[in-house]
């Protein structure tokens, strides 16, 4: 049986907003080869992004010229380190339209979320009345969605277990969207906080946060937005967003590992007790008890990850030079092309929105008759790095009745050649495992 696959309106290569070849030259790792001399096709930026030379240079510059502990000491290096650290805070804040005193540095998004979750349970037992405003306890409810990464689920499950509060969640529709039909009952007068992702790490869905935030604020609940997959890929402005917290990770946006951000509205941060305590975050310390610094220092105990923060500021400047509007458009063009290319392959099913409407560039798919691990292994053999498994969103794969998926994610250095390699690789996997109908790859 022969069947020609021809979809004229399908996979079209629209001109890309970013100069992929020029950008690739900025990323040293992209010039290495893998698995016996094959070009590295890195389609796993959603797990962690690669780093341009400018980021590596910034960290090296700091260590070679400035290194000292910020906010301590009066020597010249300490002054310069403090200056560089705080300048980076301002740069990173400006990137999301936030004043620098609303930017708290953490290890990553996971730690940012835990910081808020622990602050809310610490609030219940705080000796300072001004820290009890957002206390969570019995009878209160926390709302998440079925789409969340484990990092935006487990901290809230645990908060509920610690405090006796109840966890509720918004479900998903068959096409990978949030089911908001019961928003007004799930988010109600008992709700203390709603935690929701802006862009799903597994489905690619971009969520309609406006409706959710409006409902949450109507009932007096706080809103935490997980921006781990949105801040790296689309313009995000906290004033426009209207949430109370936004978290994101440096390593997913061309920055170093070990640095993340918690943005919080100042008045909210100011009413929260600390999560981690120790040096730096204090006002006055006595053996009998201590008082704490104002935000953001209140939430930055210990010597911070200074070089990483400076590296992250360099990543932000790199992204600003490209322009986040163009980064978003670039990925949208790639996503449209990839959805069409994968859609042409018999047996491939995309889990998540089927088009580019309110959708980012995380594309999860299954290949009939081949387990995602095995798909990933064939791709790896061809130099293509993708993620396989449940992507730290186990309830999502369970919701869609698959054990796992293969996921490709894109970034500024991704080009159509990468997606062609992916599609060819999927066909090669079908050939290797003897499944699928037509194959000429």
């Amino acid at each position, binding site marked *: 049986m022969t069947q020609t696959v021809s979809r004229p309106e399908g996979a079209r290569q629209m001109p890309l907003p970013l100069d992929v070849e020029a950008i690739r030259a900025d990323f040293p790792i992209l010039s290495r080869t893998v698995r016996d001399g094959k070009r590295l096709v890195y389609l796993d930026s959603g797990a962690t992004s690669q780093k341009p030379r400018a980021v590596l240079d910034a960290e090296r510059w700091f260590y070679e010229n400035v290194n000292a502990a910020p906010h301590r000491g009066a020597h010249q290096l300490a002054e310069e380190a403090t200056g560089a650290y705080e300048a980076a805070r301002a740069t990173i804040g400006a990137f999301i339209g936030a004043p620098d005193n609303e930017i708290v540095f953490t290890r990553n998004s996971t730690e940012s979320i835990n910081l808020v979750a622990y602050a809310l349970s610490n609030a219940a037992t705080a000796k300072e009345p001004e820290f009890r405003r957002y206390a969570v306890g019995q009878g209160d409810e926390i709302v998440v969605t079925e789409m969340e990464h484990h990092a935006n689920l487990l901290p809230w499950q645990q908060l509920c277990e610690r405090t006796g509060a109840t966890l509720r969640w918004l479900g998903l529709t068959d096409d990978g969207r949030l089911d908001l039909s019961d928003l007004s009952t799930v988010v109600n007068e008992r709700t203390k906080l709603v935690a929701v992702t802006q862009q799903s790490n597994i489905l690619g869905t971009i969520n309609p946060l406006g409706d959710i935030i409006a409902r949450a604020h109507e009932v007096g609940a706080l809103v935490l937005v997980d921006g781990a997959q949105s801040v790296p890929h689309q313009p995000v402005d906290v004033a426009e967003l209207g949430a109370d917290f936004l978290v994101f990770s440096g390593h997913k946006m061309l920055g170093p590992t070990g640095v993340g951000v918690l943005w919080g509205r100042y008045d909210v941060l100011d009413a929260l007790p600390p999560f981690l305590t120790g040096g730096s975050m204090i006002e006055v310390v006595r053996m009998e008890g201590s008082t704490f610094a104002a935000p953001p220092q209140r939430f930055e105990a210990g010597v911070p990850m200074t070089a990483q923060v400076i590296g992250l500021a360099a990543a932000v400047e790199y992204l600003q030079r490209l322009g986040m509007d163009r980064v978003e458009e670039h990925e949208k063009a790639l996503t449209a092309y990839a959805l069409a290319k994968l859609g042409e392959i018999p047996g491939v099913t995309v889990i998540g929105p089927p088009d580019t409407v309110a959708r980012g560039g995380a594309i999860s798919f299954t290949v009939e008759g081949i*387990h*995602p*691990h*095995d798909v990933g292994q064939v791709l790896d*053999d061809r130099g293509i790095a993708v993620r*396989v*498994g449940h992507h730290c969103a186990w309830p999502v794969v369970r919701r869609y009745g698959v*054990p*796992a998926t293969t996921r490709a994610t894109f970034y500024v250095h991704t080009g159509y050649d990468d997606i062609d390699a992916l599609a060819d690789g999927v066909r090669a996997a079908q050939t*290797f495992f003897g499944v699928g109908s037509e194959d000429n790859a």
Partner: protein
Amino acid sequence: MQLESMYQDIILDHYRNPHGRGLREPFEAEVHHVNPTCGDEVTLRVHLDGDTIADVSYEGMGCSISQASVSAMYDLVIGKSVTEALETGEHFMTLMQSKGDASVAEKLEDELEDAVAFAGVSKYPARVKCALMSWMALKDASARAWGGTKP
């Protein structure tokens, strides 16, 4: 292309036509093991006749390596004493830690039969646990079954 070193024909045969698949009665112990990094799962039952493994029955979902491994294991352990089976499991573990060292596979060839084909998997650290999951389940289930049947 190095894929063939991992996906030996023997492995693909076991994957496509698994031996002993399905959950059966009677059994003295049933365990459920999960690989938390990828979500692969196996439910495995052990039926002992005295000290002898009379049956191992299983259901699972997972990649070709994990599914072929449980099938090859089924062939190896039926009729063996629990002690012998667990010793074979230890040797399979040694094979999986061999990082592709052919001399290890050579030494274990007679004992591990089809399962020696997994030597190629040992070169891929991320996949080693796929091959080991069923053996871990067997160890767990045998210990429970043994505990349950001992006077």
